[in-house]
């Protein structure tokens, strides 16, 4: 018995009807495709409108339709609309197909006659295909209420707090000894000039004290198994060599430790820490760690001063790493950014000329708890600069390094200018290409800096050198730049140069992405599901991204993304189960020869191999229905529901209009 197919051709106002003769396509389908099973064929101005949808629903009921074919816009836009319409009328939504005669026809052709003929072909293809559709049910997968947040910076902290405050358990994993991220290193934050630590530490303390947050610092994720709603994550807790159940955080161990180490992480190489240390005084948790690479005990077997002096006997040099596995339903990656290495630009002198600083180094200089006690001084630790040059766009907006704009450096450079004015009275130059101040209060901040008498020079700095040519330049750092607003090359002598180095993806972001089964862009930032409309989800269900890991952004945006990811997760948790699109691949075990070619082809790690039976199997929860394995299987043993060989071949036959009367088309010259 053949199917009863309803065909609906949309005008889309004049978008389609302006080029395609929709009435004739509809008439043609009703007449020519009747032998395929088309019982009713209509055209309508806007199929996606409620009236349009009601048309379909009425026909389903009255004409007892078993299949629906809509020829309109791209499925990306309204596939869901029409599927829901069918569902509302009692027809399985997957028995409806939407073919595009807009993006693929009326929008790309000007020849109306040819376009109309093409629309007929597309409709015919769709009808041939939809006959082979099967009724499918979405998969329902239960959601474990716990969440894993990877990364304890401001985005991760925000996400963790939101979920925990709502009453759900959170595991917060951070690979440094304390949470806080880069924000903990800053002095003031723009544009309000809030003290960074002052606004961050209350949130950090909340995290540390929260009954619903299991804080795992000095830890890293090793393995991720499972799928949305049911992840099993293996976390390695690196040995702190401190028994946290006994440690009170009193600090005697690091006070007594004789081994000083240059702190390249928190102090950006500007200051020291001890071999046993907390990265900064407000660290959460308060437990120190022993750096077993530099600690004298691990190097030579001697010292042990910390153990001698610890009042609660909390030092344990033999502590081993511990691996735990946790079950979570969703994962949020908030792993932050790395700084562009300014040494890659030798002409700026970083690393060769002493008084050239990076932005992170300068933050530590300004920070009251930093290596200079908040005094802005040169490398010698005492001289106050009389002139300071701040260089924008270091490593950013540059095809030789990173093409993108790092979003925050202009504001950061303005902030630095302000701090220099405030604390030293020095002459300040900012060298920029554009001043980017898009958010609330940002442009006003720029105006403030103008009023403070900052000298803005529009020109990307060509070089920083100490080769003086005239007496005024002797002993100074000379910034050579074209002042583009006056069209002259200038050499400006300064005492201190601050490079606003751009942001980069973490050095291991590609490996981390692979671990979690998501993708990175060419610049190594994690890729969001949709750059405009879905910035915190990824193509992998259950994995979300937030903060700078997704791309350069300021603190308010990071917080917003952390909260957004948390909201998405909580929405899933509330639903208790998630329904997954049934469009996915299935392997016919009888035909599978166990060659495993498909295993490595799958970009979502969705194919398992059963050793005992020597066959592969697709995990329907992870499978995104991309079709790569279907094409790759040499035995043709894999079929895609919703994209079966039968469906595709039929659609091709329908498109080619074989065995069908095809009015010869005369093409306009």
């Amino acid at each position, binding site marked *: 018995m053949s199917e009863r197919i309803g065909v609906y051709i949309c005008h889309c106002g004049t978008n389609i009807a302006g080029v395609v003769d929709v009435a004739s396509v509809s008439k043609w389908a009703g007449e020519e495709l009747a032998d395929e099973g088309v019982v009713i064929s209509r055209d309508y101005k806007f199929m996606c409108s409620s009236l349009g949808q009601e048309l379909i629903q009425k026909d389903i009921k009255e004409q007892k339709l078993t299949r629906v074919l809509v020829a309109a816009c791209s499925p990306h836009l309204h596939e869901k609309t029409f599927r829901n319409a069918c569902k509302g009328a009692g027809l399985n939504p997957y028995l409806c197909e939407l073919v595009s005669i807009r993006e693929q026809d009326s929008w790309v052709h000007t020849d109306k006659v040819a376009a109309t003929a093409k629309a007929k072909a597309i409709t015919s293809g769709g009808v041939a295909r939809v006959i082979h559709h099967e009724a499918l049910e979405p998969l329902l997968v239960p959601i474990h209420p716990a969440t894993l947040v990877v990364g304890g910076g401001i985005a991760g902290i925000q996400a963790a707090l939101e979920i925990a405050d709502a009453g759900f358990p959170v595991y917060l994993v951070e690979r440094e000894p304390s949470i806080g991220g880069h924000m903990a290193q800053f002095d003031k934050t723009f544009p309000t000039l809030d003290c960074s630590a002052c606004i961050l530490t209350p949130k950090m303390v909340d995290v540390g004290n929260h009954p619903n947050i299991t804080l795992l610092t000095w830890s890293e994720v090793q393995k991720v198994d499972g799928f949305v709603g049911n992840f099993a994550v293996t976390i390695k807790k690196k040995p702190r060599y401190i028994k946290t159940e006994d440690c009170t955080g009193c600090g005697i161990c690091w006070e007594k430790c004789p081994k000083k180490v240059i702190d390249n992480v928190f102090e950006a190489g500007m200051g020291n820490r001890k071999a046993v240390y907390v990265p900064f005084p407000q660290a959460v948790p308060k437990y120190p760690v022993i750096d077993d690479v530099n600690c004298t005990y691990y190097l030579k077997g001697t010292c042990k001063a910390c153990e001698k002096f610890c009042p609660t006997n909390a030092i344990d040099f033999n502590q081993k790493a511990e691996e735990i596995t946790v079950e979570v339903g969703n994962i949020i990656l908030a792993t932050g950014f790395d700084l562009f290495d300014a040494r890659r630009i*030798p002409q700026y002198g970083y690393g060769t000329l002493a008084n050239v600083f990076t932005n992170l180094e300068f933050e530590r200089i300004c920070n009251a708890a930093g290596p200079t006690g908040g005094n802005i001084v040169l490398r010698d630790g005492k001289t106050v600069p009389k002139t300071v040059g701040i260089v924008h766009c270091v490593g950013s907006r540059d095809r030789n390094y990173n093409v993108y704009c790092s979003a925050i450096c202009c504001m950061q450079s303005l902030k630095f200018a302000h701090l220099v004015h405030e604390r030293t009275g020095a002459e300040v130059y900012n060298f920029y290409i554009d001043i980017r101040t898009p958010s609330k209060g940002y442009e006003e901040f720029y105006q403030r800096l103008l009023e403070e008498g900052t000298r803005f020079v529009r020109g990307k700095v060509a070089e920083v050198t100490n*080769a*003086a*040519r005239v007496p005024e330049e002797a002993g100074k750092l000379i910034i050579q730049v074209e002042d583009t607003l006056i069209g002259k090359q200038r050499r400006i002598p300064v005492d201190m140069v601050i490079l606003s180095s751009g942001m980069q993806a973490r050095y291991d972001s590609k490996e981390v992405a692979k671990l979690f089964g998501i993708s990175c862009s060419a610049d190594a930032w994690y890729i969001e599901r949709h750059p405009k409309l879905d910035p915190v989800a990824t193509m992998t269900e259950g994995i979300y991204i937030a903060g700078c890991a997704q791309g350069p952004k300021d603190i308010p945006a990071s917080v917003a993304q952390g909260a957004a990811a948390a909201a998405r997760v909580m929405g899933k948790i509330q639903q208790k189960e998630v329904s997954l699109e049934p469009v996915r691949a299935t392997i016919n075990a009888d035909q599978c020869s166990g060659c495993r070619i498909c295993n490595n082809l799958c970009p979502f790690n969705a194919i398992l191999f059963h050793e005992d039976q020597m066959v592969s199997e697709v995990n329907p929860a992870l499978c995104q229905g991309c079709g790569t394995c279907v094409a790759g299987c040499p035995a043709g043993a894999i079929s895609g529901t919703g994209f079966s060989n039968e469906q595709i071949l039929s659609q091709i036959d329908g498109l080619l209009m074989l065995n069908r009367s095809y009015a010869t088309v005369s093409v306009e010259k």
Partner: protein
Amino acid sequence: MKQYAYYPGCSLESLGKSYQVSALEVARSLGVELLEIEDWNCCGATAYFPVDELLAYTLTARNLAKAEKTGLDFVAPCSACYKNAYFTNSYLQKDADLAEHINYALEADNLHVNGTSKVRHLLEVFINDVGLEEIKDKVANPLKGLRIAPYYGCQILRPRKDHENTENPQYFEGLLTTLGAEPIEYASKARCCGGSLIITNRKAALDMVRILLQDAVNNNADVIATTCPMCDVNLEVYQAQVNREFGTHFSIPVMYFTQLMGLALGIPPARLGILKEQVSSASLLAIAQNSNQERTL
């Protein structure tokens, strides 16, 4: 014996005579055979590109074609010739249309070019092919205490060939250290000497030369070592003009790196074209000779 297709370039037969002489001496001493390309023509330097690009590439392609016949690497001691040859060669590989055009012209001279040679500068041939270890073994008179300013100039470094360091290269310094000398750090080591501007815009070129000389002198250089005859002439022959123009009193010797290599290898100065300069290198010889008890001939 390592063999190379040697392209001296016009300058080495005239203004850069000492470069030619010292290069051949040093090559011989290090077991490098520089086989001069048969009947080579001028590469056009920087003067052809203002007129016709295709012809400019064709001139160089003729020399490349001759080198290809020998199957040896193409070696140029002059940075401008080197740059022209390198990029002509590279474009021949990448652009089939260009290759077709050029080969059509070369046909008239019974030649054909494929772009398969490797194009090298003499400096890096010594550093990479002979190797610093072997050179160190052959150094008979280490140039102890001689402060040399390594002058790379432009076209040996730029435009960039691959992602190598063009802002702060160190390979020339490596060679000078191997010779026992003390290379100095100075910011202008890759700054232009003015090149052909010495003719077409003398004021500009003299200013550029002055800045280089000043930087080398400020950093206490005893001598400036060059890798290109154009640079050498601008820095040395026109030093007097610089002094006249700007009221300076420069009198710093400028020598080709091959002359310095020759001294270190124990070759007599006369065979290296030394003491034939406008700015006398007598002071430099004194330093070089004072730091050594004996010289081998």
